[in-house]
């Protein structure tokens, strides 16, 4: 029994921390202190993490399984949330109430994600995804007096409810076919029978719909732009990083992990979806004049690249997850710098002449945008290079060509923002101050982007171990 408790100790610590913050929030602590508490509980969870999980065991009678992939993803989510918390502390909120609840939701969301990624049972998976969704609806609609945020919350809820409904129905059909919800047994029975009943395809598509909604893959990406646009900056940043990564992690866990599904038509279809995601994401961002929507569509484009990695076999899996790790830092950095440079005005005109008004901030923002676009010395290029390499190695030439074509289109709007910052005259010449936490976050992400760009060996070794 102690083994089970140890396994989920990090989540428990997070939940406890969240409750504690909730209580402090009620007693009127300021946002900075609550943020610090959140960071404390996250680091504590981080240190507790390795205690419980030796890689071969499963806990709670099959509910959770502790493999290397799950372990790595749990660290990934902790790091992502640390960045999100830092951004929330550094960001200038209009009104300062409900800070306690905000961090409560953030930590609870992280706990759900960590549980979801290490869940070995479809029921547990569904419950944690549902929990994450509910918390996200509330986070999206957090600024209850702002018409945009509430509209975003509602849109997210409506879209999310339908998707999780589809996923649930898919899971019931899976239960109907296999009589059990335990992933390990399902994979075993699948490999055994090999008969690919049409019902399983129906179930697979429905479950895929649910997860694809989270990972913003094309037919299910419509909500991304409106929700990111409406939600407050830190929430949008968090959405673009953590839940999206969870979506891809679960896709790997359910679909690409088991070999049975792989040899059927899936890789071809995922490749087509990847191309669609990239192209529609990049094309929609082409003429955007609202920075937030531009970054939202760019994150859809990036999701396309990650999916392209997933579609091309083992080498592709490593490339996709390397891309995802780099994507966290790039995207969080980009969202953070956009948020810190002009928190309330989101149209591109607000960023005119930012080169003079906030030289360091503009430099960081340019760095992240260029990394997102895939300029060589930065990590973004290496990530894209690995995806292309996997695509060519798997003989998906048109996929590699699509990635290349999309990065040309993507370069256009990333460069448009840079151009506006450096080449247009600023409306007002007053200096733009960025808070200390903001600079800390930007520094960390920048260090990661440049560091992994120049010396990616340790990361690649870890991924090789995970996907051996």
């Amino acid at each position: 029994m102690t083994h089970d408790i140890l396994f989920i100790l990090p989540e428990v610590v997070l939940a406890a921390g969240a409750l504690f913050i909730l209580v402090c929030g009620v007693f009127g602590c300021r946002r900075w202190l609550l943020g610090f508490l959140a960071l404390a509980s996250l680091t504590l969870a981080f240190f507790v993490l390795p205690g419980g999980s030796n890689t071969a065991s499963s806990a709670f009678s099959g509910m959770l399984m502790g493999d290397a992939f799950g372990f790595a993803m749990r660290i990934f989510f902790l790091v992502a949330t640390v960045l999100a918390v830092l951004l929330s502390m550094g960001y200038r909120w209009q009104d300062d109430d409900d800070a306690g609840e905000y961090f409560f939701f953030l930590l609870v969301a992280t706990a759900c994600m960590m549980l979801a990624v290490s869940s070995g049972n479809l029921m547990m998976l569904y419950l944690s995804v549902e929990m994450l969704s509910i918390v996200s609806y509330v986070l999206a609609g957090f600024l209850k007096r702002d018409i945009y945020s509430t509209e975003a919350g509602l849109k997210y809820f409506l879209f999310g409810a339908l998707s999780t409904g589809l996923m649930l129905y898919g899971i019931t059909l899976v239960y109907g076919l296999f009589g059990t919800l335990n992933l390990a047994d399902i994979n075993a029975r699948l490999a055994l029978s090999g008969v690919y009943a049409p019902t399983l395809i129906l179930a697979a598509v429905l479950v895929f719909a649910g997860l694809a909604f989270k990972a913003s893959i094309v037919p299910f990406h419509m909500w991304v732009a409106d929700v990111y646009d409406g939600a407050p900056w830190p929430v949008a940043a968090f959405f673009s990083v953590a839940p999206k990564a969870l979506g891809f992690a679960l896709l790997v866990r359910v679909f690409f992990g088991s070999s049975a599904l792989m040899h059927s038509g899936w890789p071809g279809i995922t490749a087509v979806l990847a191309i669609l995601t990239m192209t529609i994401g990049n094309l929609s961002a082409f003429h955007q004049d609202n920075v937030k929507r531009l970054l939202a569509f760019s994150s859809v484009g990036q999701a396309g690249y990650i999916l392209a990695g997933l579609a091309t076999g083992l080498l592709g899996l490593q490339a996709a997850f390397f891309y995802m790790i780099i994507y966290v830092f790039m995207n969080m950095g980009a969202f953070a710098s956009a948020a810190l440079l002009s928190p309330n005005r989101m149209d591109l005109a607000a960023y005119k002449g930012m080169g003079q008004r906030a030289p360091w901030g503009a430099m960081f923002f340019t760095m992240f945008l260029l990394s997102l676009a895939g300029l060589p010395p930065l990590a973004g290029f290496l990530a894209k290079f690995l995806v292309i390499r996997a695509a060519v190695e798997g003989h998906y030439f048109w996929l590699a060509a699509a990635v290349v074509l999309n990065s040309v289109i993507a370069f256009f709007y990333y460069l448009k923002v840079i151009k506006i910052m450096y080449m247009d005259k600023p409306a007002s010449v007053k200096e733009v101050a960025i808070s200390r936490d903001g600079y800390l976050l930007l520094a960390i992400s920048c260090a990661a982007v440049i560091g992994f760009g120049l010396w990616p060996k340790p990361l690649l070794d870890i991924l090789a171990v995970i996907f051996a």
Partner: protein
Amino acid sequence: MVKLAHWISVLPFMAFWLNIMFGRKLGKLSAFISVGTSVMAALLAVLVCMGFMAGGSSYALTGWLTVNGQPITLGIIIDSLTVMMLLVVTIVGTLIQIYSIGYMSGDPRYSRFFAYISLFMASMLGLLLADNLLLLYIFWEGVGLCSCLLVAFWYEKPAAAAAGVKAFVTTRVGDTGLLLGILILLSLGNTLHFADMASVKGPESLVALAAVLIFLGAMGKSAQFPLHTWLPDAMEGPTAVSALIHAATMVAAGVYLVARLYGFFLAHPLALQMVACVGMISALMAASIACVTNDIKRILAYSTISQLGLMMLALGTGGYTGGTFHLMTHAFFKALLFLGAGSVIHAAHTQDIRAMGGLFTKMKMTSVTFIIGALALAGIMPFSGFWSKDEIFCAVWHHGNMWFFAALIATSFMTAFYMARLVLLAFFGASRLEKDVHESPLVMTGPLVVLAAFSAGLGLLGSPWCHGAFQHFIQAKDEAIGLNVPMAICSTMVSLSGIMGAYMIVVRNVKFPTWTWLKKMAVNKYYVDELYEVVFVRPFQRICVVSAVFDGACIDRAVNDVGRVVGACGQAVRRIQTGMIDRYLLVQAGGVLMLLVFILGKVCRIF
């Protein structure tokens, strides 16, 4: 002694750099630097000549390039032709530079003029000393450049600038022919040294084409028929320049090249035949135009083209000695005529011979020397012109082709005619000048006298009295050494009749009613300039404008359109996000349905 030959070319080159670098500070001194160096070059030339007499030979300097595996080495060639040309060029060059001290005295860019002259001397001497075709080509272009710079020396005048450009471009067209000839020979694996040009490897047709192309280069430089249009326009430059470049030295380079490659040309009779024909046509045409032009310098320019035509004719018909001997003598008396014309213009401030007259009484020295030059050119007995033209008469007669001989006679007749007309109009008769005229200073008339002496005496070298000294020196192969008396009488008669004709028309103004259309054609220079304008210049400009428009409109617009198209579909895709939730839900459910249909169709082939 012979090993110092390369200094002949290097000294003027140093003078050029000195004058360019410290031009303004030197002022008058720059003239003495350039004259000094050319005098030293002349002395060196004499030393080399003596060294050659004592059995000196050509020597190599350094390796330069390896093309197609063939190492090309630079070297200096010493043989009779080079020595003779070195002497001619240095002597004439020095005299002209002395003359131009006076002629260019008032000019603001005085030092720059002498810098260019020194550069020209360096390139010309380098051209003569080069022992392989590539090195010759390099100096060949250098000479072309100097002629362009000197012609456009007074670049304030737009006509001078245009003439300079025209000169360089036309000679450059010829040089492209020479370059292609070199490329052909190189591609066939021959080394370009003159020594082994006689035995050229490669298929007969290609080598013949190379020979023709090389002759194209010679035509460009010596202003032969198709590429002659630049020489008359080049008269815009100072007269000293015309004398040096467009009479004595540069234009002779073409003939020198044909003479230098004579062994190569002899091996290909077709090319030799072409040389003769082009020579004939140029001679006839230029002579006819000269008869009707009224500008003193243009008459002499056309006369130069005509005489060069004769030399080419001589070489073409196997008269190696005739061609080279006439080349030497022509350099002297044509330089004399130009300098004489220069001093006349310097004094009378006009170039139109109809506006001059009666200068004989006022400018005694210039007139006498000018008349000696004219008689030499016309080919009258004691003067050098007669002997060299006699050699040509023998060569053409010996060759046997009647058409060539008839053309030769016609050209000599016309030569005598226009020279006599010029002398009569300019120096005799009533003075039609407004202001009074006074003799040019000694610094200008001095060289005239020396040149007159040369024009008179030089011919004797080839005459029987010196029992064929020149023929032996030039190692002539053909055996017609002795004076062919009937040929001499015939040429003298032709010249005298030409002079009488001029006398009748100018003094007695007798009207010859025949061939009016030929006269009109000659006046308009056979419309060659207009032809080139219509065939080459205007279409080239039109092509350029069209291609510029094409470049801007088609390619540029295509590129911009690609950007616009991507932008448009970006706009279209963006329009899908209408913000209406029911559309989003529909897209999602539709997506699920499409996925289902697609996968079921693909995997299980249910449909």
